[in-house]
């Protein structure tokens, strides 16, 4: 294995959803740094593949259409559930089709960071708006991103900001802003939570279009002591002071490193190495570029350091096998001889990751979180379905002895260890089984 090819393959797995053999050939000849530039450049501008995916019409939540159990109410709930599935399917298709994979991968990272769940938000347009915000602003200033996410209808509903009133503040958003979004546990006190909640009092959104404004009568305009500062702060000041607190940069950068390279604590040296790039402007794009160019990103620790999160696993497999998010062959003529009811979103749910519905505001865990007997079975079932849906004529044409190597190339991997190679040889006579076994192999489950 050419070391440059191995490096760009790793980069494409982490900064995207893997790459085809042709993409890897081109990237290897362009070089590692040039490939980083290409992926980073994709954080802005058009995304021909992703933009070609049809966007269904999503509506904002409406008042109950009738009493519980009524025909009108049931129809409303059915429509809501249908739109929610369309939203999940839209994003999955977008990830499969994207020409700017880092932008989609970063959107997925932010979805896990600002983990907002449809099960409580119950407003499909609000979830879509947040997702588009994460996509359009995710590579910019972190502070600008937090300010915009905080004012979005989805977050306002998710953490009850709109019910935070002057006479008795609601601490939900205030606490998670510091604990999960900007600072991390240990970098604030309960008194800061109380002050921050006062700052967000009076924040509301217009139910018609989700636009944000302040109800002055509900805002607590008094002085607040917060993170060592005192002033009559409003919510925007509360966010500004949190993002500019000395603890914030390390917290945010350690999360980026943990999800793109391998899990680290905020005190880790690699986090220090990203501080200059992130800078006072909380520049996410510059931090990511420094991350991908850091020598430790290509270390053995990094190569062995992450398990793919389920949707990335599924999208990567679909892209490598030339399948759409509904498992139809993207190249071949109407080869829908495998009309599978289960699309990628449903498969992802079986693997413990439901798009637009993280388990809680802390988002999904990492690595061991994805590994247990239930997900092992789900992966096996899904691999069998994907193998059966794919066009494997090229594998059929090759000699059985050459097939395990060919599958590694197809899936964008450097190769297989001896244990997996032996296992693949058991299945090599049946290309569907071979590909499916490969999709369950530890080397492929890792990112």
């Amino acid at each position, binding site marked *: 294995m050419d070391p440059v090819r191995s490096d760009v393959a790793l980069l494409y797995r982490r900064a995207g959803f893997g790459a085809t053999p042709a993409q890897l050939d081109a990237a290897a000849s362009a070089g590692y740094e040039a490939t980083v530039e290409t992926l980073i450049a994709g954080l802005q501008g058009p995304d021909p593949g992703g933009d070609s995916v049809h966007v269904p019409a999503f509506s904002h939540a409406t008042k109950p259409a009738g009493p519980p159990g009524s025909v009108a109410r049931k129809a409303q709930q059915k429509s809501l559930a249908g739109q929610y599935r369309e939203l999940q399917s839209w994003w999955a298709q977008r990830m499969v089709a994207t020409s700017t994979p880092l932008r989609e991968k970063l959107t997925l990272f932010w979805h896990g960071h600002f983990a907002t769940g449809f099960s*409580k938000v119950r407003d499909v347009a609000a979830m879509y708006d947040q997702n588009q915000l994460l996509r359009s602003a995710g590579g910019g200033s972190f502070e600008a991103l937090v300010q915009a996410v905080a004012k979005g209808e989805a977050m306002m509903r998710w*953490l*009850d900001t709109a*019910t*935070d009133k002057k*006479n*008795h*503040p*609601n*601490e*939900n958003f205030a*606490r998670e802003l510091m*604990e*999960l979004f900007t600072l991390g*546990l240990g970098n604030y006190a*309960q008194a800061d939570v109380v002050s921050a909640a006062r700052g967000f009092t009076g924040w509301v959104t217009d139910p018609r279009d989700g636009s944000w404004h302040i109800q002055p009568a509900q805002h607590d305009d008094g002085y607040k002591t917060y993170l060592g500062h005192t002033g009559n702060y409003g919510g925007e000041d509360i966010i500004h002071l949190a993002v500019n607190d000395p603890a914030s940069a390390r917290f945010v950068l350690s999360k980026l490193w943990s999800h793109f390279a391998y899990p680290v604590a905020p005190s880790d040296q690699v986090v220090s190495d990203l501080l200059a790039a992130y800078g006072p402007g909380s520049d996410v794009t510059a931090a990511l570029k420094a991350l991908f160019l850091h020598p430790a990103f290509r270390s053995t620790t990094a190569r*062995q*350091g992450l*398990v793919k999160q389920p949707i990335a696993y599924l999208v990567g497999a679909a892209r490598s096998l030339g399948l759409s998010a509904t498992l139809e062959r993207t190249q071949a003529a109407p080869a829908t001889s495998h009309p599978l009811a289960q699309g990628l979103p449903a498969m992802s*749910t*079986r693997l*413990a990751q*439901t798009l637009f519905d993280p*388990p*809680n*505001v*802390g988002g999904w*865990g990492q*690595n061991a979180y*994805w*590994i*247990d*007997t*239930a*997900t*092992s*079975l*789900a992966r*096996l*079932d899904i*691999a*069998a379905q994907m193998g059966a849906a794919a066009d494997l004529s090229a594998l059929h044409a090759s000699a059985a002895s050459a097939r395990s190597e060919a599958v590694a190339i197809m899936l964008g991997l450097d190769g297989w*260890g*001896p*244990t997996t190679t*032996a*296992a*693949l040889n*058991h*299945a090599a006579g*049946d290309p*569907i*089984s071979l590909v*499916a*076994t490969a999709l*369950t192999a*530890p*080397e492929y*489950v*890792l990112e």
Partner: protein
Amino acid sequence: MSAPPTGPTGQPEPPPVGDDGLLRGRLTRRRVLAGAGVVAGAGILGATLDQRGWLSSTANGTRGHSSSGGIAVLVTLYGGNDGLNTVVPASDPAYRAARPDLGYQPGEVLPLADGLGLNPKMPLMKKRWDDRQLAVIRGVGYPSPSLSHFQSMDIWQTAQPDGTGSGWLGRWLDATGSDPMRAISLGASLPPAMRGERQAATAITSGTITLPGRSPLVAGFAACAQPGSDRSALEASVAGSAAELLQVRSSLASLTGQAAPASTSGRLAAAGTATFGDQLAVVADLINAGAPTQVYQVSLSSFDTHANEKSAHEGLLANLDGALDSFLTAVARGPRAAEVVVFTVSEFGRRVAQNASGGTDHGTASSLLVAGHGVRGGRLYGDQPSLTSLDANGNLRWTVDFRSVYATILASTLGVEPASVLGASFPVLGFL
């Protein structure tokens, strides 16, 4: 695979179970291999099982369960259950003053004792209380309580003051062998409480495990599940979970045979979407089928009721009430009802005073429910925290350390020295 033996009524007989709670006689190597549906890969799978010591240890009975072969069912209520609106001090004026909208009137709650009443949406648990099958532990918390969901969850799951390290049930798994059937969690992701340093519980989403029909694939998958010195740590854990899946698959197939509980496995076909009641129904089926499992975990989410709490919380408690009652009824049909104890945990209770959103913010101590046919029920355990002498954040002061609840389960149900798992001694409570 032959049909399982049937009893006089034509119903399949539960497999024979030894004194140590282990299955006897039926888990031959041949049966395990046949049960796994492996044809071409039989030798490979057998080697895997042998290497992991499962068959041999079962045959020798060296990894026996203790003489207290009880069964603990952990019910995790995610989000922080409002203990004060579950076991309600409705007759305390301080309660009604703190919750003018959210609180219940004395006449609304289902009376228990000491002026406390169960939430009106829990009539079935009230009946179980009257039948002495439900106990309530009051004021459960821990020192220096955290108001963070995640840190508090970590503390409860690890039973360590700083919330770091392995899960408390994971440590029990580490100390008791390697059979993945010992502890089973319903749902696609395993809670940290059930992950040890070396062992982890099994996660299932239904009572039966069906592998894909392609035999070369199953053979390849089984071979991939083998340990290999070429694997990195994460790769080895991926392979290890696959090996455990195959073991559990065999165990479940041998256990239930043709008696596979179609009622629940059918409902759970769309895995990952099992309802809370479905989860408990699978647990009851496994218990009644004689599974050697000593710990089960099920979960119910959405208890983080910061806003519009009353109707949402009532819906959750009604769900809990119905599912727990059905579970207790189901296990009463089997031979092990007296050994089964179900208990709820949640990362914290909620603030005494309601907020302006018709909800409550994060709190501290809370009431836990313990139910079972062998529970010393109809009684309150622990002291009721004061509603007027609150901590600096307006939260309850705990009276019972949650590790005392764990210690009681460990000692009475799992039959181990609690300090060996908890790292320190805690008073054992009298509910078992």
